[in-house]
């Protein structure tokens, strides 16, 4: 399938909506992407003809659902090039994946005086779980700073790493700046100290190929809903050697081998970390979304989105008093900016009136806003269905904003 706008856009029914009497222009894809018909149909098909609880009943439907669920695990293993199916754990999303590791890894490995390293550009989901873990285990949280382009200060990172560092948690791609971090190098350096690395891949998964083997990362997290899949489902990849040693995160059905009131023995991987009835339908939906991405192809997606990004930056630069936040060399299709003389909330309100959906505010990355000493930004984030005409409409709308406030 080639990325020809017409064919592609038709697969996303919601793109036909009107908002405030104008055709919707959706440029808030870093918050969540829309879903292609194939994903929506998959959910429907599951509830219409496969619905049943998995890994339990021996009846026909249960077998169908179990097979589909485990096939999805295999497909996702391939998608991220993991070594084993049981290294792929289904969760509610990136946030839960990070919390799982912050809880279970820390319980086993984090001791008083140890250190966890995160970066200044993390999403709150990759900050707060570590704050809680550090508090629980009397460990210290250390922050890798960013430079004014919105890139990690690798020199500072090298200085911060030490024998005390138990884990480094960094984002693959920043949601507020679009920066692609050199995670492979980050991991290589951490491993010199036998330090584990968790990569927050929420913003990477829809845009760039993930190869956990090539990265050699210890944990990798992403959400279905940011990559054309359903909400409420995501993945935690973890190396077997860690997952085997980590205690369960939640107790309940599925995750046990035998239960008695004296002693319960836990199930093996991956089930040890999947307590309770899983979100089967959405796992299957996410599986379809991944198939969709693979059919379009990462190379085509990257080429198309980079082209759009470049076009957007060029066009936006025409506007007066625009300040870009995040100008990293390596970045995905996110443009964060503000007018130096207009509050981002005002800009966002008028854009909404004009049928254009963007995100304004701090994007759950308050430390980033603090670094740049700004109240927030207007964030435009593209997906593979956005077009240059939409960028033109955005620029025209922003010119209108300037007229109204300037």
């Amino acid at each position: 399938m080639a990325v020809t706008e017409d064919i592609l856009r038709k697969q996303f029914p919601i793109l036909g909506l009107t908002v405030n009497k104008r055709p919707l222009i959706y440029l808030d894809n870093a918050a969540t992407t829309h879903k292609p018909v194939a994903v929506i149909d998959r959910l429907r098909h599951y509830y219409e003809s496969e619905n049943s609880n998995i890994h339990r009943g021996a009846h026909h439907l249960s077998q169908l659902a179990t097979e589909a669920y485990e096939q999805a695990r295999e497909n996702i293993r391939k998608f991220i090039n993991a070594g084993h199916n049981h290294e792929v754990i289904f969760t509610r999303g990136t946030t839960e994946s990070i919390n799982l590791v912050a809880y279970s890894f820390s319980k086993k490995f984090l001791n008083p005086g140890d250190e966890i390293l995160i970066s200044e550009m993390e999403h709150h989901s990759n900050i707060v779980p570590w704050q809680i873990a550090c508090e629980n285990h009397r460990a210290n949280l250390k922050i890798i700073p960013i430079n004014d382009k919105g890139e990690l200060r690798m020199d500072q990172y090298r200085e911060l790493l030490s024998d005390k560092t138990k884990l480094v948690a960094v984002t693959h791609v920043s949601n507020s700046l679009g920066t692609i971090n050199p995670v492979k190098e980050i991991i290589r350096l951490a491993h010199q100290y036998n330090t584990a690395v968790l990569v927050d891949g929420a913003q990477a998964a829809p845009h760039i190929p993930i190869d956990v083997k090539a990265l050699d990362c210890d944990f990798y997290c992403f959400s279905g809903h940011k990559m054309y899949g359903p909400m409420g489902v995501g993945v935690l990849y973890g190396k077997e050697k860690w997952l085997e040693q980590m205690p369960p995160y939640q107790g309940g059905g599925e995750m046990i081998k035998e239960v008695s009131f004296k002693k319960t023995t836990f199930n093996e991987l991956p089930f040890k970390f999947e307590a309770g009835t899983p979100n089967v339908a959405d796992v299957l939906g996410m599986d379809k979304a991944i198939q969709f991405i693979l059919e379009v192809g990462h190379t085509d997606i990257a080429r198309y989105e980079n082209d759009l990004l470049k076009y957007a930056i060029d066009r936006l630069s025409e506007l007066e008093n625009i300040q870009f936040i995040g100008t990293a060399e390596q970045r995905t299709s996110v443009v964060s900016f503000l007018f130096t003389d207009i509050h981002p909330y005002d800009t966002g309100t008028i854009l909404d009136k004009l049928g254009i959906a963007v995100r304004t505010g701090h994007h759950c990355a308050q430390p980033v806003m603090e670094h740049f000493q700004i109240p927030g930004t207007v964030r435009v984030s593209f997906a593979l269905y956005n077009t240059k005409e939409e960028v033109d409409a955005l620029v025209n709308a922003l010119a209108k904003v300037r007229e109204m406030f300037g």
Partner: protein
Amino acid sequence: MSGIKEKEQEIIEEFEIFDDWMDKYNYIIELGKSVPEINPEYKKEKHIIRGCQAQVWLHAEYKDGKVIYTADSDALITKGIIALLIKVLSGQPPQEIINADMAFIDQIGLREHLSQTRSNGLLNMIKQMKLYALAFQKSKS
């Protein structure tokens, strides 16, 4: 009709002349620019009402049985809406402020600015305005 309802009616009539949203917002922006600035002394942490997107500062004092509000925001549209809220509530007796339903916001088509997702501080500002009124009323009796 209470003082507050009268003021609300005035605003509703003012807004009836706008038949397109752009005129309406231009008017709100102008209002925002004309809000008497809050005394810088009050533009401090203590008086801030945090929203995730825009900040609001609010100050209230009690004079001759009436509550006088001044406020400010870093966003102009928020500030314009603040001007409307102040026009309606400032200079009124505490009990009336406590009872006010602020239905006019809906009638002039600005309800979306009071929704949770906007998190522009306005919703909390109204709450805070009422809390001030309540406190003044208590201290009076």
